[in-house]
């Protein structure tokens, strides 16, 4: 008997220890009322509560930035996901820049630009821009960059638009497009339009692409672990305020935030919505946020059974309760989304009528499509792990109430991307960050690109998009885009769910981060004032 008691005792003691050390003392869970629907008050789409630097402050020399994605390439034209864009923005210069405050284009290394017919654009370069290896940036480098673009992995969309880049002289060049595109200047603000150094790259393809002309230089890196940047002291613009900046890959979200709290890192990207309350409540930490333009949407395969039937698509549109997704999955940290346009995207129609959650109406559409209690409609929903899987589970439960059986099929990122691009899926949950220029929505609603997960192909929409992109007159262009959004809504091509708010948890006194809704944040001028 004694041995039996010893066994039970040991188990209880161990369980107690586990419970003890993991139950937290900060916020007592029981008081936390389930749904924290805090509307993001002042943190709306401002660039975070910026503490503007006043005079000579003692800036923290070395800043460590913990992020959830790993950096695996130097070449700005080889990669385009968020984590790489942080590094590209800091190390390279793009011809133009976009001011999030004024929503206006601004000169960067290009001082003036002009076009008559939106086909040929002419640009003037600054003459005091130098690469990190000391060579001066000239039009030859620009031509080299954009001639190389078509056969790279990420800059190919830009490269395919350009027919020819002509060098006039060292500091003047012209770009001629295959067809008129009003959005070119906007495209030249994206990291994929970064200018790389011709000599360095021709000499050593792998290392050479790391030479930029931006305020920061690449110091050392270990792919999949960290990338250390050091200040470029002879930068043509405003010098960086810190000396070194290290981007560190920390996959486990909760561990990343803990490193911030223990002071091992200074900035933590994308903390878990669950922990936002804690960060706000912890002194020494600050929460900076921005309303992103990355739309999470429910796409239905337009090309094959069962979702070629419009009734079923509309049944889904009214059967899914987007607000509940916002409250449960995003814990309120998201904005409702009306259509497949970013809220700051050219041509966004704030007035499009949203799909109100209306189970009865959904049931009517289901009946119209020939489904009922006796003959229930069921389909497979492809999702990837994490947030989208949580949304999937919730949608599964919601649609159950209107008699629809959803089977969740889980993929890893590569698997999901392939099966949805090849159209093997019936429906899927996907996301896409919308840029500022109007034509960006083309990749979602017109055939030909990997993001059109509904394989939506409506000649009327295609025609309107082509007209708009070539239309110089703003009012007409906006009209076209509004019309497209209305057609999409009536046809039920997609069910847009929400714009997720983005968050950075930072050490107190952090500032200078220029937040972009498309999450290409510019951290060149980041600083931390030592408290």
């Amino acid at each position, binding site marked *: 008997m004694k041995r039996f008691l010893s*066994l039970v005792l040991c188990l209880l003691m161990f369980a107690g220890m586990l419970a003890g050390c993991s139950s937290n003392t900060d916020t007592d869970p029981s008081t936390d009322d389930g749904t924290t629907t805090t509307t993001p008050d002042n943190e709306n789409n401002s660039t975070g509560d910026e503490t503007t630097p006043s005079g000579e402050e003692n800036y923290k020399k070395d800043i460590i930035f913990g992020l959830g994605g790993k950096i695996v390439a130097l070449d700005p034209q080889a990669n385009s996901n968020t984590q790489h864009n942080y590094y590209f923005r800091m190390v390279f210069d793009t011809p133009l820049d976009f001011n999030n405050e004024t929503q206006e284009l601004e000169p960067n290394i290009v001082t003036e630009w002009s076009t008559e017919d939106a086909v040929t654009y002419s640009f003037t370069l600054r003459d005091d821009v130098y690469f990190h290896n000391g060579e001066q940036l000239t039009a030859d480098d620009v031509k080299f960059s954009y001639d190389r673009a078509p056969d790279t992995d990420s800059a190919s969309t830009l490269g395919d638009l350009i027919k020819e880049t002509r060098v006039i002289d060292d500091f003047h060049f012209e770009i001629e497009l295959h067809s008129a595109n009003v959005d070119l200047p906007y495209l030249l603000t994206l990291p994929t339009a970064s200018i790389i150094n011709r000599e360095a790259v021709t000499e050593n393809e792998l290392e050479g692409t790391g030479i930029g002309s931006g305020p920061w230089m690449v110091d050392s890196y270990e792919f999949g672990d960290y990338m250390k940047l050091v200040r470029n002291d002879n930068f043509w613009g405003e010098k960086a305020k810190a000396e070194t900046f290290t981007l560190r890959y920390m996959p486990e979200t909760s561990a990343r935030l803990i490193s911030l709290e223990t002071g091992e890192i200074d900035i933590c990207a994308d903390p878990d919505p669950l922990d936002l309350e804690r960060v706000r409540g912890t002194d020494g930490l600050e929460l900076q946020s921005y309303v992103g333009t990355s739309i999470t949407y429910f796409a239905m395969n337009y090309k094959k059974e069962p979702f070629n039937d419009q009734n079923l698509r509309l049944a889904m549109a009214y059967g899914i309760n987007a607000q509940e997704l916002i409250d449960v999955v995003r814990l309120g940290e998201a904005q409702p989304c009306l259509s497949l346009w970013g809220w700051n995207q050219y041509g966004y129609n704030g007035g499009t009528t949203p799909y109100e959650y209306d189970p009865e109406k959904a049931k009517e559409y289901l009946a119209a499509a020939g489904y009922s209690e006796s003959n229930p409609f069921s389909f497979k929903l492809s999702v990837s792990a994490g947030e989208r899987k949580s949304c999937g589970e919730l949608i599964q439960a919601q649609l159950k109430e209107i008699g629809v059986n959803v089977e969740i099929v889980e993929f890893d990122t590569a698997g999901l991307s392939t099966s949805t691009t090849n159209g093997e899926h019936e429906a899927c949950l996907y996301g896409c960050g919308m840029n500022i220029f109007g034509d960006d929505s083309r990749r979602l609603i017109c055939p030909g690109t990997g993001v059109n997960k509904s394989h939506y192909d409506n000649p009327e929409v295609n025609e309107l998009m082509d007209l708009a992109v070539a239309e110089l007159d703003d009012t007409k262009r906006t009209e076209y885009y509004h019309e497209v959004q209305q057609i999409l809504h009536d046809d039920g091509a997609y069910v847009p769910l929400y714009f997720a708010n983005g968050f950075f948890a930072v050490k107190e006194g952090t500032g200078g981060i220029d937040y972009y809704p498309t999450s290409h944040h510019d951290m060149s001028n980041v600083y931390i004032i030592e408290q």
Partner: protein
Amino acid sequence: MYRYVLKRLVLLIPVLLGVSFLVYFILDLAPGDAVDVLAPDDATQEDRERMREELGLNRPLVIRYLDYMSDLVRGDMGESYLSGQPVWDSFIEKAPNTLLLGFASLVVSVGLSLPLGIYSANRHGTWKDNVSMVLALLGLSIPNFWLGLLLMLLFALRLGWLPSGGADGFASLILPAITIGTGMMATLTRTTRSSMLDVIRQDYLRTARAKGVSERVVIRKHALKNALIPIITIIGTQLGGILGGAVLTESVFSWPGVGRLIVDSLNSRDTPMVTGAIIMTTMFFSVVLLLVDLLYAFVDPRIKAQYATKKGGKSNDNKQKQKASA
């Protein structure tokens, strides 16, 4: 002895070929390929085709494999689809971290298991014996990523004694090593206990006592050296578990090791990197297993004699002698 070592190394070649074949073909079954990960969302179908061509993914599987193997034989493990960096460089960058972590967790595991095993063998049958066995089993019964998180919460956050992640300095090694180490304790403690129980019964201990040797020395010198033999065999088999544990622990503690490299590469269908890394780890483990066998011979003279006299061919007899009591 050298004939035996040579034979084991030669035997390694077919195993490595087999492993590369196995991983390469299984990985190809996975839906999607590196281009689906690399290509940005707005890449058109032509872009994707072009990228596939660049990486040679459009060729049939067999040709790709043969091409890969012909490079491999010449020592070139190819480049990662993702970063273009040679597989060998990335592996070499990460290998020391996992090696360090593996060694540290072995130290933790052996450091905890040996005393616990001896302690429970000496008190065979009492409740102390049971409690220590349960403690050892606990290590095996707790999913180690959960343990890792709890340790981090307690020691890094609440007490602030240790860093919560990263691979800078000795302090950041402690928590991951404990997480992996405890996982391996169970088998090691059990083996120590049963081999000590066997040895304690042996006559030569009685001879030692009859010689007037003190009890402490009888256990520590005479008994332990004999008991070490099955323990070393088990440590050999446990090494596989280290990398298994590392895969999880490295992502929890942001430890830039090979385990995480393989998981990340797997998710991004980076076949050369995955195959290369697995081949290297397999080669590393086989060499370490061979070292364990040699160490085994070093400790047990009966085996050493067997190597010297017997022609290499008899190696599986000797395997038979190592009780496979894993």
